[in-house]
């Protein structure tokens, strides 16, 4: 990890060292919004388990929500990241058809959020930093998901993540879709890979509702309108940093992509672990409290708020 003065190393990283500052964007023209969506969904794009494999060691996967089932759309566990034991939680979309079906294409069921909650609580109890990797189109639209209360499961994770006193770093590694993504996203630092997307709704869903029609043209228009790219989210003040990808996208050189993600995660974690537990929670609260506020008009003094 060049450029990392504190000497932390992501030992599992199997790629050669790449200085972040010299990493080039893919080509002279930045990809359009819909091109980024395609890159974010690319079937060969590295997924959570690839990053765990490339960046961490001694991974112990933790299964089940202790209520109903184990949801394979979210993987969670303990591992060493560098010399540090961490809790890791991420969406897993799957690659082969069989695996994709088993993992419900990375769309979590309530059990997945509750498994994540269990791991957040475990990490909190033992003071482990938490790394989350976001890669989902969003929540599941099925009878079972509604019966078993996915609205409650997502809401509970937002509450839980907001009150954690351990360092939390999230990285959007593919598609960050709606509440299914945010249930892993209320972190001290939120990173986004260069070609990842983060949106309140999929471009397809948005086109179907607002344009009242699908079709490639409308979906592309919706993708552009939603401002879902990493540069857009940085500009809107919703993420902290863009993690560069190898030229052509993360799928072209997974080890290199992982190395870049690992370097960013390590740099932020090393900074955060120096903060006191109470400060970590307050800093996270302030960060989310500020989101969007700069776009408000006519805010009176009466409504000044304090987070103490």
């Amino acid at each position, binding site marked *: 990890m060049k450029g990392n003065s504190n000497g932390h190393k992501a030992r599992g990283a199997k790629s050669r060292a790449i200085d972040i500052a010299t990493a080039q964007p893919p080509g002279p023209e930045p990809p359009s919004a819909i091109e980024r969506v395609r890159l974010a969904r690319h079937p060969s794009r590295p997924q959570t388990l690839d990053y765990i494999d490339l960046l961490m060691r001694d991974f112990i996967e933790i299964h089940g929500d202790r209520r109903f089932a184990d949801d394979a759309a979210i993987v969670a566990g303990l591992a060493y990241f560098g010399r540090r034991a961490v809790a890791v939680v991420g969406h897993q979309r799957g690659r082969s058809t069989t695996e994709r079906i088993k993992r419900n294409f990375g769309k979590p069921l309530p059990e997945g959020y509750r498994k994540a909650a269990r791991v957040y609580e475990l990490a909190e109890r033992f003071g482990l930093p938490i790394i989350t990797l976001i890669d989902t189109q969003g929540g599941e639209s099925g009878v079972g998901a509604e*019966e078993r209360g996915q609205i409650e499961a997502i*809401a509970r994770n937002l*509450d839980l993540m907001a009150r954690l006193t351990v360092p939390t770093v999230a990285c959007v590694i593919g598609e960050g879709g709606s*509440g299914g993504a945010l249930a892993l996203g209320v972190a001290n630092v939120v990173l986004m890979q260069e070609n990842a997307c983060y949106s*309140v709704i999929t471009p397809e869903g948005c086109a179907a509702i607002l344009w009242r029609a699908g079709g490639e043209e409308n979906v592309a228009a919706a993708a552009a309108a939603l401002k879902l790219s990493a540069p857009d989210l940085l500009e*809107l003040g919703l993420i902290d940093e863009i993690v560069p990808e190898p030229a052509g996208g993360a799928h072209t050189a997974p080890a290199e992509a992982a190395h870049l993600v690992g370097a960013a995660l390590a740099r932020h974690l090393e900074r955060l672990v120096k903060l006191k537990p109470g400060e970590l929670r307050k800093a996270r*609260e302030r960060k989310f409290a500020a989101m969007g506020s700069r776009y408000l008009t006519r805010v009176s003094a009466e409504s000044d708020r*304090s987070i103490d």
Partner: protein
Amino acid sequence: MAEREPTTGAAPAPSDDIWTKCPSCKEMAFRKEVERNLNVCPKCGYHFRVTVAQRLSLGVDRGTWRELMAEMAIGDPLGFVDSKPYPARLEQARASSGRNDAVVVGIGKIENQPVAIGVMDFEFMGGSMGVVVGEKLARLFDIARERKIPVIVFVASGGARMQEGALSLMQMAKVSAAIARFRDARLPYISVLCDPTTGGVAASFAMLGDLNISEPGALIGFAGRRVTEQTSNQQLPDDFQRAEFLLAHGMIDAIVPRHQMRFTLARILTMLTRPRGNRGAGPVASKGKGKRSGEVS
């Protein structure tokens, strides 16, 4: 939120006609009679949607309401244009509602107890949550925490507002974090889920109350019914995503008819905030003034 169907406002409040037809029992009733009955069908108990003004007059002691942050508004952070530019949609909603966005917040009294109250306006762009809704609710929780008073939010929303993109998504986290602070102060928050409560609003502050209670028949869920039908490839139960369905699956605490809402809320707040010395007495008995419990004006 996640692939929601357009919210069309399919169950409107009674119109300007003398007669109104109940969408549930299909009976005709005098509009005035329905209104006098708190916009509940006198024949079958169907709960019509109510406006923000009606909700406040049903729930808050007369003359005690003070709105906060009414002037807060948003421009067009994304420059969002679909079939119409976002500012034009906002302007239209503002003109017809007379308010800047989809929530009204303030402080009033319920059965003589001061409470911070939020009421979402489904008529305003489907009650969707953008930055203004998130900011006003988060600040309401912070104000209530400083004043040490409870919060009640009457939720009615189709979810996050697409025209504000990921900014609207993050409001789920903003409000949830404010609730976490508020809860740590051991003050009660009651979420009242009204028709409809869906998408990202359902999946955040609507489900984070110390008690989550609902009006009868309210639609509550994450994904839209049509999408769910397509995905699951099965006939959905008639009460799918209705309050009764959620109650049966253990997801809400109680269903409270509109006639009993004010009294029930007051009693819960009294029990949670003054747990001793109130047994057998109404919420206001100790103060010796105000309306008797159960009386609805």
